[in-house]
Structure formats: C-alpha cells, structure tokens
C-alpha cells in the first residue's frame, strides 16, 4: 500500500508540474489592458500574409513583416510596449470586439462593411488586387473571368471584388496556399489576391501568372482597426501622419518589398522538396510540444470530469442523473468546433475574463471528451461484478473509497482500449485549435506553407509527426495494459 501511496504522490506531483507548465504557457499571452503610456498594447494579426506579416519560423518563430514594423514604430513613438498575438484572419474582428487585442494590423482593408463593427485609422498602404491564374491561361481582366471558377480568401476584401460578378462560381478558402493549390489542381480557374502575395507565389511557381486589376475596383487601402470608440485611433493617426511626411513609412514599405527573401528560383515545381523545411524543424517541434501538452491537459480533464459524470449517471440522486444525461446529450449533439469557438469568444463577453486560447481549447476539448468518456466509464463500471460492490459494502468501506479504489480500477482495466482510442482521437482532433490561433502542429504547418509557398511538404511532415505521436501513445498504452493485466 505504501507503494501505491508513493505512486499516487508521484502522479500528483507530475500533474502539478504539468499544470504549472500549462499555466505558464497560458500566462505568456497576457490580456489586453486599458491602453496608457508605458503599458502593453496587444496587436492582433494573421501571420500568413508575407510580406505584411509572417512567422519568421526559421528564426525565432517571431511574427515579422511590414505591418509589424509599422506597429513597432508607432508603439515606440507613443511609449507603449507592443505585444503581438497571432490569429486566423477571420477571427480578427471578433478578437477586437471581445477586447482580446487593442488593435489589428493584418493587411486589412478599411471596407464599409468592416467600418460597421470597428474603427479604422488612416490608410497606410494601398494594395492592388491581382488575378492569378495558370500561365497558359493568363487571364488579364475581370471580364475574361465570366463563367469561370474563382477563388478568394475567406473574410478578405477580395470577396467583395468578386461579389458582384455574375455567372461565376466563387470558392472561398481560408488559406492562400490552398487557393494556389486549387489553381494547380484545376479546381478553380483564377484566384483574386493582393499584389504582394501574387508576386510571392508567381516568383516561386513558374506555371503561375498574375495580372493587376485596374485600381478603381476595390480601391480601399490597408488601415489599422480598433474597437469602436478606442482612444488609440487618434493617437495612431497622429504618428501615421508624421511617418508619411518624414518618409519613414515609405522606407519600411521599400524594405519589405525590395528584398524578396523567400523567392527562390523555382527549380522545384515538380517533385517534393523537403530540404526547404530544414530551417523550420525547431519551429515545427515546438508545435509538437503544444499539441502534446494540449492533448494531455484535455485528456486528463476529460477523464476526471467524465468519471465524475459517470458516477452521476449511476447515482441515486435524480437531479444528478438528469444533469449528466442532458450534459452528455448537448455536448455529443453539437460540433466540437462550435463549442470551441463559443467558449473562446463567449467567455470574455459573458464573464469579462479574457480566457487564454490554450485554456479555452483545453476546456472545450475536455468538456466534450468528458461527455463521451462518461458513457464509456459508466459501461465499464456496470461491467464490474456486482459482488465487488457488495464485498466492499460488507467490509464497511465508504462509497467514495469503494468507487475510487475497488470499482473504478477494475472498470478502467476493462475500458482501457476505449480510453486509448479517445486519447488518439483527441491528439488528432487537437488540430482544430488552430482556428483560435493556438500555434499547434498543424497551425505551424500552415504557417510554413505560407512562408515557403510549398503546398504539400509541411503537411506531410506534420502528418508524419502526428503518426509517430500516435505510435508512441499506443505503445505506452500497451505497456500500461500489460501492467494492469498482471493480476490475471
């Protein structure tokens, strides 16, 4: 028994350390505070849009780009500390509204539609839209695209460029690399993207071609977005005016458009090119750590909560039974992605607590997984011989001790294969968290796709890592099972 105690102590210590680790990981992303001199302001950006913003994955994993340089300059002038929070582009406005970030700079055009929800600064850059298509077609104007299939980035201004076009079939994807890949795979005939992006892809893909669209269409420029009524808007505009007049702004733009770092000659248009992933190995591995940590936290939480729910289900107290039944029905009956988005965006609005992304994700996955596990564990408990319960009761062992030390250990042994299945599912489903900008494995793979203009290689590398993780997990489970079966 001493052994068991020691084991339990070690397990709880390990848990404590890991939880502390998570806490630190969460704490890295501090909340958006009320702005004021010397304070930290948080900038939201979607770092998959070089040269405006991208992750310097080969370097330290920091977000860099034209927008970041401008933001740094402004923050400097105003005496703020700048913090940058990466997120999916279509989540940026929501992040502003829920005050997760103080402002957004992400190559975002100041459209009328967006002005309804946020305030914009003066325009700092006028991008132009282009038509990208295969070299052999080389579409040059929107008129030529009549009746064709056109792709745009979801939530981007290009959506409105194509909105009025008749007889066309519009495909909206959230990632630029996917648009480019769709072009090559003949799923779309043309993609409407901005000039810098088009130049980047055409530079690395010899079979692509781009044409500028005349400027009168979709003429909005890029501006900085703020929450409605933010005092920052005026402060930022002041600095922007200075930057325009003293040439700082132009210098920054020239810096990012002058040097095309990633535009290697496109020798490798066919075949896979893993060599180019090498500098990103460390970046990808840190994503593996995030994925593992996240899976561990949500599995642990899901298991503990699931076990409690399963006890509710077999309890004599009717309200507890009802609660757990309704809980299971709701969490199993709605998509996990929806639960994740709700928790991430609704908690700040309802409770005034800016829940960190990793915590929100761990919570959503844990809550969801608990719904499934509670049924599995309940089945496991019911499968334990009734005599075990009677023997424990006859010895005068209290209910809780009986459940924890007599019934559950036997139940868990019975359901171990199902538990392993759940863990494997969690590990793979964890890739959903990239929608709320947790930089997990798959998220980082997409960042690398955006940076390198490589379509498949980062995905294959991430897939291989997932597979290895699952292999390790299943062999650990086999060891555990053998250990539990030694009493047979």
């Amino acid at each position, binding site marked *: *028994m001493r052994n068991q105690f020691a084991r339990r102590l070690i397990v709880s210590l390990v848990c404590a350390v890991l939880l502390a680790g998570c806490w630190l990981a969460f704490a890295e992303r501090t909340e958006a505070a009320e702005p004021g001199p010397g304070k930290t302001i948080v900038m939201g950006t979607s770092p998959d849009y070089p040269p405006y913003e991208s992750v310097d994955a080969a370097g330290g994993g920091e977000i860099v780009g034209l927008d970041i340089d401008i933001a740094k300059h402004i923050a400097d002038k105003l005496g703020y500390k700048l913090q940058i929070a990466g997120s999916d582009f279509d989540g940026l406005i929501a992040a502003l509204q829920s005050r997760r970030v103080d402002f957004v700079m992400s190559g975002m055009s100041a459209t009328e539609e967006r002005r309804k929800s946020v305030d914009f600064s003066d325009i700092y850059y006028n991008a132009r839209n282009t038509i990208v298509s295969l070299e052999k077609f080389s579409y040059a104007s929107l008129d030529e695209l009549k009746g064709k299939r056109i792709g745009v980035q979801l939530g981007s201004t290009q959506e409105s460029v194509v909105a009025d076009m008749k007889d066309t079939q519009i495909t909206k994807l959230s990632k630029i690399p996917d648009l480019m890949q769709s072009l090559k795979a003949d799923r779309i005939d043309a993609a409407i993207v901005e000039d810098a992006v088009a130049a980047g892809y055409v530079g690395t893909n010899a079979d692509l071609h781009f044409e500028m669209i005349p400027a009168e269409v979709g003429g909005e420029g890029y501006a900085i977005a703020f929450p409605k009524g933010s005092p920052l808007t005026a402060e930022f505009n002041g600095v922007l005016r200075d930057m325009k007049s003293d040439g700082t702004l132009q210098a920054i733009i020239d810096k990012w458009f002058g040097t095309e770092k990633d535009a290697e000659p496109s020798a490798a248009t066919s075949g896979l090119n893993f060599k180019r992933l090498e500098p990103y190995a460390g970046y990808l591995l840190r994503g593996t750590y995030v994925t593992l940590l996240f899976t561990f936290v949500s599995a642990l939480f899901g298991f503990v909560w699931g076990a409690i729910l399963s006890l509710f289900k077999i309890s004599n107290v009717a309200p507890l039974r009802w609660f757990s039944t309704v809980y299971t029905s709701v969490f199993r009956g709605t998509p996990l992605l929806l639960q994740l988005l709700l928790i991430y965006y609704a908690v700040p609005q309802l409770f005034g607590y800016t829940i960190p992304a990793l915590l929100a994700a761990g919570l959503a996955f844990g809550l969801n997984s608990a719904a499934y596990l509670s049924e599995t564990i309940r089945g496991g408990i019911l499968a334990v011989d009734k*005599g075990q319960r*009677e*023997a424990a009761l*006859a*010895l005068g062992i209290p209910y809780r001790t009986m459940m924890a*030390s007599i019934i559950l250990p036997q139940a868990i042994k019975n359901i171990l294969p199902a538990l392993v299945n759940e863990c494997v599912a969690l590990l793979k489903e964890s890739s959903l968290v990239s929608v709320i900008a947790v930089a997990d494995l798959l998220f980082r793979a997409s960042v690398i796709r955006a940076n390198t203009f490589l379509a498949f290689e980062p995905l294959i590398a991430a897939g291989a890592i997932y597979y290895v993780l699952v292999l390790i997990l299943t062999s650990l489970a086999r060891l555990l099972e053998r250990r539990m079966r*030694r*009493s*047979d």
Partner: protein
Amino acid sequence: MINVEALTKTYGKLEVLKGISTTVEQGEVVAIIGPSGSGKSTFLRCLNLLEVPTGGRIVIDGVELTDPKTDITRIRQRIGMVFQHFHLFPHMTVMDNLTFALMRVKGLSKEEARAKGYMLLERVGLKDKADVYPSKLSGGQKQRVAIARSLAMDPEIMLFDEPTSALDPEMVKEVLAVIRDLASTGMTMLIVTHEMKFAREAADTIYFLDGGLLVEKAEPERFFARPQSERAARFLEQVL
C-alpha cells in the same frame, strides 16, 4: 445480540420474506437451511442491509438497523460477510485484500495492518500466498482468504452465505474446517448452508426456512432426529 421482528421483504409482487422474528444470542452459531427459494440468503443479506427490508425491525446490540439515522457503514464494520463466490478484489494481492479496509477504514498503519494480515493468513493456512493475486488461488484458498479478509475487521458477527456451494468437493473440507475453528472461538455466526453434516456438528441452532417463513428453530440433534413440521421432515428426507 441480534433481534429480528416481523421482517418482510418483497420484490414488486414477489414476497420473499413473509415476517420472520427471532433472536440470536452472543456467541450463538446458527445454521440456516431450507429448500432453494425459501429466502435463506435474503434473510442473511437483510442483516447487514445488503437487502433493504420492506418491513419489520432489525436491532443489533441496541442499534436499530432500519432506522434511517443509523450509520450503516459503521454497523457493517462490525458484521463480517462471506459470499458464495468469494468476491475477492481481483486487482489486489491477497495481502492487499486483507489490509485495504484496515488501513483505509480503520486507519491502521501499513506495518500494523500487514502484521495482522500475516496472523490471519497463518490462521487460515495461507501465509505463503500473501503476495499472489487471487486469480492464482484455488476456490478453497480464495474462500479462506475471503474469511480472513472479513476477520481482519474484528467483527462481532459473521455472516456466511453458502460459503462452500461454489467449491469443488475436495475443497469443501478445508473451508469448513476454518469455519468450525471460528465457531469454537465464541464468534456469533449465521451460516446459510447445504452441508447438513456440518450444520449438525457445528451449529448451536438450526433455522429451517421455507416459503419466506422461519418454519422451525431447534437444536441440531432434535431437529435432525425429530423435525416438528411436515415440511422440514420432507426436506430432510430429500437431502439426507
């Protein structure tokens, strides 16, 4: 010691116990016999509330079991129970089976509990099996461990629910020897059994149950020689 008044138990429409009243004295060894379905096991299981009585009263040492205010867990710690199918905890070694409740319920230290465990294993002749898992034991050995597990809690009363019915014939003897040994120590015991010879030799009193009623209650010699009721006589005719 144990006072039972008008005990009834029904499952839906099925009346299993139809009003049993009796008194068991301190140190008395009672053998409960009767045809299957007569309510023997149900009667026994009511005595530690594994079955909740439908009506009547059970009073043990002045404490009324059926009173909702009674802390049944504490009462159960004073009543040991041995089952037909042993119900050892399969995920624990023999020693852990014996010491678990001692440490977690009675709060003994590991050393104290193990010392007691060894003493009891010696008593049932299984000292060398302390560290094996139940799956490695024979039926007779399992039942002896189960008895030792109950005894570890120092019960004042022991309930045996057909302790030898699931055993191969050659193992019945070793288990009965342990129970007989226990009876000689002055422990209050109630034993549901089909072993008539054992009942006759070891018991102070025979309860004959039939159809949910305590039909006859007598000393073994008298019961087996001159059963008072016709039903008991017919039963003895069939089994002897």
